């Protein structure tokens, strides 16, 4: 399934798709603008929290509509993808998107860190948070890619965003001064198995929370989720046939 000769082709197709998508362009430009605005209005540390928490969503937005439209639109029934090459193309998309998204957020991180260094507020832990955020971003690509085998257009990303919204709303309603889940999450301490499992469930749909780096186990959960989603995608691609 790993065909390095396909990377240039996949990169060119993916680059054109990303540039042609108003949503991806808007999200990609609005995100750093909001972070800078917050940093100017409040402080660098607040902007840093926002940056590290939100940048994995760059990968989620970029992963919209990864597979289904290509299949249904008939574009894969092309001389470019003969001999089962369409399967390897779909598989290569994961790595190309991860590379493209990674390069973009690395550029943002470099600019953001330069800003922090100039202010004297950059801390080494930011580098670790960036690494964890990258892991969350790669997980989004794996998960959204697997969903995209079943969901049309950008609904793979939309489903994840709606699930995240529901999870966050549920979290807010669960917060109390004594036993609220939000309180556990804020403190990083989860008394009892049930609250740990609940937080594990939250990490599965909103992996961004691991940038806080409270519990390494949840980082490992995202890593396992990434491996599982890629395995599922691999199986789906192998079973895929083009019969429009």
């Amino acid at each position, binding site marked *: 399934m790993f065909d390095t*000769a396909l990377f240039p082709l996949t990169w060119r197709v993916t680059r054109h798709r990303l540039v042609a998508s108003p949503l991806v362009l808007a999200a990609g430009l609005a995100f750093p603008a909001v972070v800078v605005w917050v940093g100017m209005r409040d402080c660098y540390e607040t902007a840093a929290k926002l940056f590290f928490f939100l940048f994995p969503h760059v990968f989620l937005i970029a992963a919209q509509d990864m597979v289904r439209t290509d299949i249904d*639109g008939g574009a894969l029934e092309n001389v470019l993808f003969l001999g089962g090459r*369409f399967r390897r193309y779909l598989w290569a998309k994961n790595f190309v998107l991860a590379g493209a998204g990674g390069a973009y957020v690395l550029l943002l991180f470099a600019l953001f860190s330069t800003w922090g260094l100039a202010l004297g507020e950059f801390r080494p832990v930011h580098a670790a948070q960036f690494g964890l955020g990258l892991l969350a971003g790669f997980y989004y690509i794996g998960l959204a890619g697997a969903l995209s085998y079943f969901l049309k257009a950008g609904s793979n990303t939309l489903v994840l965003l709606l699930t995240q919204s529901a999870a966050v709303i549920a979290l807010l309603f669960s917060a109390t001064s004594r036993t609220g889940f939000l309180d556990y999450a804020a403190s990083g301490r989860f008394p009892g198995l049930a609250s740990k499992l609940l937080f594990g469930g939250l990490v599965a749909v909103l992996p961004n929370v691991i940038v806080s780096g409270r519990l390494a186990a949840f980082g490992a959960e995202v890593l396992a989720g990434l491996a599982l989603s890629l395995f599922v995608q691999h199986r789906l691609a192998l079973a895929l046939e083009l019969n429009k």
Partner: protein
Amino acid sequence: MIEAHRLSKRFGPVQALKDVSFKIRKATITAMLGENGAGKTTTLKIVLGFLRPDSGTVLVAPGRVGYVPDRPAYFTWLDGRTILGLADGPANGNGKDPGARILAAAGGLLFDPALLRRRPGSYSAGNAKKFAYLQNLVARPDLLVVDEPFAALDPPSIKRVRDLFLELRDAGTTLLLSSHMLAEMERIADGFIVLRGGTAIAHAGIKEWRLLRSARTAPDLESVFLRLTGF
């Protein structure tokens, strides 16, 4: 060039192919004939690797394979020139603009090169078909598989494509064509495979067909086809 052995394929309750076998020699034009739903496109897609047979095998000799679908579809956000650039080079996607080669091929197909600045989704059906041929000519295939080769083409373009097939064959390319246009197929094909209900009911190679055509009382292909398919 192609050797298919006992291909079978089922889509749910529909047995699309059943024990289909055939051989196609290098540098020949073979026409695959059959009624609607006979299994022609399924067979082509198995040969091309878009579908997997439930049983049976297909062997295709090493070399570059080209494919022109019945109704070509493309990535909607790419223009014609970019798509042709993706097809160029032995590894695909090396980004070089074939330039003069594209222009020469476009002229041969009566395809206006100015259209390359537009997205193929905006082309007429005929131009989309010609663009699919152009994409394959850029890739210079050793085997060219074409589903409904003359669909949506105007008469001058049909003649150009027919001549193109003969030129390609003479240059050593093997062609497998699936078509309902029996008169056109009779003019250019060296051999025939006739499918009915997912089964190959006749397979005439180049020798048999030459023999048949040399006979004074030889019927035309339409008569043979209609007799074979029971009409």
